[in-house]
């Protein structure tokens, strides 16, 4: 599974972006998006903002689970108290074109067939939902720490801290 994660401000500006791959079931943590898909990802993610803004008033939970699907791309949303959106696009490994990662695909596909309930293979299973919830909560904690900095002008300033990026990457390795 490949992931694209973005933090979007209440004014719809991206504050932070990160791409990573699954580290579960033998994944190497590298994203397997094609160059074309990487541009499309941003577009898909932003187009789901409308759905988030509708849902956030019917459900007071921070974690909104999978809210949108575009072909093989699933979007999970998390809305903070101050209306900052965390969006995660996840794409199961099986949809990766054969030429993108030729030596690994067969192996990866085989392993994902074996554990069809594992986090890496099934984007809508309860296990995946729970894993993403943990990921989001950990990112939220670090986000709050980021905005606690007196030099951070909430809520519309890009987060550039390399420590924050390391923390997000670590959360991705730990849960997804």
């Amino acid at each position, binding site marked *: 599974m490949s992931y694209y994660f973005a933090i979007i401000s209440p004014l719809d500006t991206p504050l932070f972006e990160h791409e990573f791959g699954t580290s579960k079931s033998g994944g190497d943590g590298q994203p397997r998006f094609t160059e074309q898909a990487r541009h499309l990802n941003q577009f898909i993610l932003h187009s789901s903002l409308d759905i988030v803004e509708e849902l956030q008033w019917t459900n007071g939970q921070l974690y909104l689970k999978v809210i949108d699907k575009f072909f093989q791309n699933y979007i999970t949303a998390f809305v903070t108290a101050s*209306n900052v959106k965390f969006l995660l696009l996840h794409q199961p490994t099986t949809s990766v074109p054969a030429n993108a990662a030729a030596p690994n695909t067969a192996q990866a596909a085989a392993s994902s067939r074996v554990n069809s309930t594992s986090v890496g293979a099934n984007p809508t299973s309860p296990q995946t939902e729970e894993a993403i919830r943990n990921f989001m909560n950990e990112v939220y904690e670090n986000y709050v720490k980021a905005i606690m900095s007196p030099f951070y*002008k909430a*809520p519309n300033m890009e987060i550039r801290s390399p420590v924050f990026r390391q923390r997000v990457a670590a959360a991705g390795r730990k849960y997804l």
Partner: protein
Amino acid sequence: MSQPRPPNGPSGAGTNPSVVLPKETSSSHNTTLRYPSNGKTIYHRHLSRSKTAELSQASFAYLFSEMVTYAQRRVTGIQDLEKRLNTQGHPLGLKLLDLLLIREPPRSQSRPLNIITLLHFIKINLWQHLFGRQADRLEKSSDPNALDEYMIIDNEPLVNAYVSVPKEMSQLNCAAFVAGIIEGVCDGAVFPAKVTAHSVGSKEEGEMWPGRTVFLVKFQDEVLEREALIGKG
């Protein structure tokens, strides 16, 4: 800084927020970011660590007097001064909203969806955090022409403890700073509002609490419109 800045470091790249390079992870090696000598950044601190910590009121009063003096420079009038105090408080509210929510136990973590939940959050959580007690009263305006107005009442605001307002500025209430914090919380939670502080100590039942302050929260029309839609929903 003694080190030369690398051309592509995180401080140089991407002034436009939409141009973040996804492959930036490797740039953490050549960054000019300087860590504190013990290696601990703000990310290493636990968010609930200072939950029960208290600040000396004397030092707060000293800082607050400096803030009022600062705001008072080149102001055109009392309204302008109150507006500046409000502006100083606003970012605090925006940030406190997230901090106070994350300190709640995970089960009861939820975003305020209607005006009442939001005002309760302010009256209880925000006041408890800032002043160590809850606000004294929460009221809805009884005027049928002002259904968008709510009042949070504090009998003796902590910020005004050592403030004596001169006669000629009797309209001034320095709790405008706290009004700014409230406004920040409301704006952050997408309930855009105007919040103002008014002294009501000298009137009616004010004998007992000469410093009584009313924070008048006036929500914008869109908030009430949405409230009606959700209520039906």
